[in-house]
């Protein structure tokens, strides 16, 4: 076993790049066999982008088209069933819960991450240990959602009243308020949905903060100084200058978060697996695919996800374009 693993590692770390370099050498060799500079110039670009185009076609373009088609077929893709799978999505009870939860996630998580991110960016801008403070907030971005799920399951751990609480959340609340009844945060609807969202917020606030903080640093000092000389207080400066100047960045961050949140999967899968009213679209799709082997329904759910993302992405790209022009 060890030899095999070692061999695999060598192949992976040395072999794969070597193969890719060999591919370019070989393609240059092929091009050099073609007569005429002009003809060479016509062939070469295609050889250079061929590996990328091939992979994009096989793993993204063809599957997207195929998933669209599968979404109109039955569970094992043997016959067309029209819109039946889509009808299922909008009538089935668990599916409706998933749609409702995704909407809840979308509004709540986006609002909180962007607001908190902006707040922290503005606050840390005024302190000396800014980079250290920001690093701490940003750190969860480096952690996998699975590890974050473990971390927070432990935070939410529940012990009955009277026994020592080992979950930090219940421990803090019972210490602050001795009459507080410890809660099983992940098992009580509808709080369990918010308990999951908190984990996502913990991970992603740092992301919003980093982008918003960079935009904040981009506001010229002269602008802020001029306002201060004119007698504006910090509050007015925040609402009248900082927010309007940063508005397009805020929109980009918010839309990026909306897209991320729509696809939320790992946290829910690890922490509750969608039980007790915490189902979300992506987890539902996984279940239709692997637990129920219904490829028609799973595909339809994926299509819904794509259709929800496209308009948001269009806003994002437009705003991003504007920002770059500035």
């Amino acid at each position: 076993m060890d030899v095999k693993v070692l061999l695999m590692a060598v192949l992976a770390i040395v072999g794969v790049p070597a193969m890719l370099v060999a591919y370019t050498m070989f393609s240059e060799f092929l091009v050099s066999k073609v007569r005429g500079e002009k003809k060479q110039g016509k062939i070469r670009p295609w050889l250079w982008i061929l590996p990328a185009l091939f992979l994009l076609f096989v793993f993204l373009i063809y599957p997207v088209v195929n998933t669209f088609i599968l979404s109109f077929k039955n569970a094992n893709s043997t016959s067309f069933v029209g819109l039946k799978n889509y009808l299922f999505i909008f009538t089935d009870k668990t599916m409706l819960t998933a749609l409702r939860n995704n909407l809840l996630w979308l509004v709540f998580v986006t609002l909180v991450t962007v607001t908190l991110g902006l707040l922290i960016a503005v606050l840390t801008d005024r302190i000396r240990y800014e980079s250290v403070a920001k690093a701490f907030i940003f750190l969860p971005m480096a952690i996998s959602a699975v590890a974050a799920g473990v971390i927070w399951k432990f935070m939410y751990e529940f012990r009955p009243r009277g026994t020592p609480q080992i979950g930090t959340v219940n421990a803090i609340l019972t210490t602050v308020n001795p009459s507080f009844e410890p809660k099983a945060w992940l098992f009580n609807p509808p709080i369990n949905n918010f308990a999951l969202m908190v984990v996502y917020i913990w991970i992603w606030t740092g992301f919003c903060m980093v982008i918003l903080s960079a935009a904040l640093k981009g506001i010229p000092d002269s602008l802020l100084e001029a306002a201060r000389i004119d007698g504006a207080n910090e509050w007015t400066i925040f609402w009248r200058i900082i927010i309007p100047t940063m508005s397009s960045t805020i929109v980009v961050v918010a839309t990026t978060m909306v897209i991320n949140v729509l696809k939320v999967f790992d946290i829910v899968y690890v922490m509750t697996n969608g039980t007790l009213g915490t189902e979300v679209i992506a987890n539902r799709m996984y279940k239709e695919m692997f637990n129920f082997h219904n490829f028609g329904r799973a595909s339809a759910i994926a299509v819904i996800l794509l259709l929800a993302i496209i308009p948001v992405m269009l806003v994002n790209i437009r705003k991003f374009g504007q920002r770059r022009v500035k």
Partner: protein
Amino acid sequence: MMPQSIVVSNRKGKLIRLLGRAPLNVIVLLICAVWLLPSVGLLVSSFRPASAILSSGWWKAFKTPLNFTLENYRKVLTTANMGRSFINSLLISIPATVMPILIAAFAAYAFSWMTFPGRDILFLTVVGLLVVPIQMTLIPVLQLFNSIHLTGTFAGIWIAHTAYGLPFAIYLLRNFIGELPAEMFESAHLDGASHYTVFFRLVLPTSVPALSSLAIFQFMWVWNDLLVALIYLGGNPRVAPMPLTISNLVNSYGGGWEYLTSAAFISMFLPIVIFFSLQKYFVRGILAGSVKG
């Protein structure tokens, strides 16, 4: 008179500023504490014996007599498949980081400095693919993998991660390589350098900042990924990376905190080291790609 009053008002100003700053500092420190607490709790618990974890909160661990142990790590590495998973994670992540970057760099160079019909439309299509949620591709790709026996293999997941990482990688590198000065290429070509030489001797070395950002991004993404591994590795524990193994541990050892905390920390260790040593590049990648879907 004058200088004295200035000193007084300066002092007063300083004091007011300091007082004014106290709430600010308190708020910032409080937020930092809230953000750190969960990870610290995990780290401390991972060194406590199971009985201690279950009988008292992790914040009580520092009461004497201290009761810390490495036993959790030993157990989880040897009996819970975490040792193997750590190696698997490395075996998956390194090629799945190198491959997309090289392939994307070839493509980005062609998109930036070669002319061919349909170039801009092709590039826009690639950027458009950033929108596609991975879920849209899972079923057809899984069927394809099943038919050519790539399910449950390292090669399969390398290729899948490579393809999924390409749109972002091409987008980011095209932006960087496209901004390199044209004179650099002109003089190189005048000296008789081929595209091959220009790419490996000129473009790759000058693109190191962009390549590093991208490498960190892609590595973290693959290292922390659950979904792609879950679907294409098909529950084969011999090839499972850490997130997959940990999620299985969560299912089988619901309350086995001594396993879960140490396993989670093993998986966090490398990304955290990378994060603290290369934070600059990580942030740069996020800023360059904030349009990513």
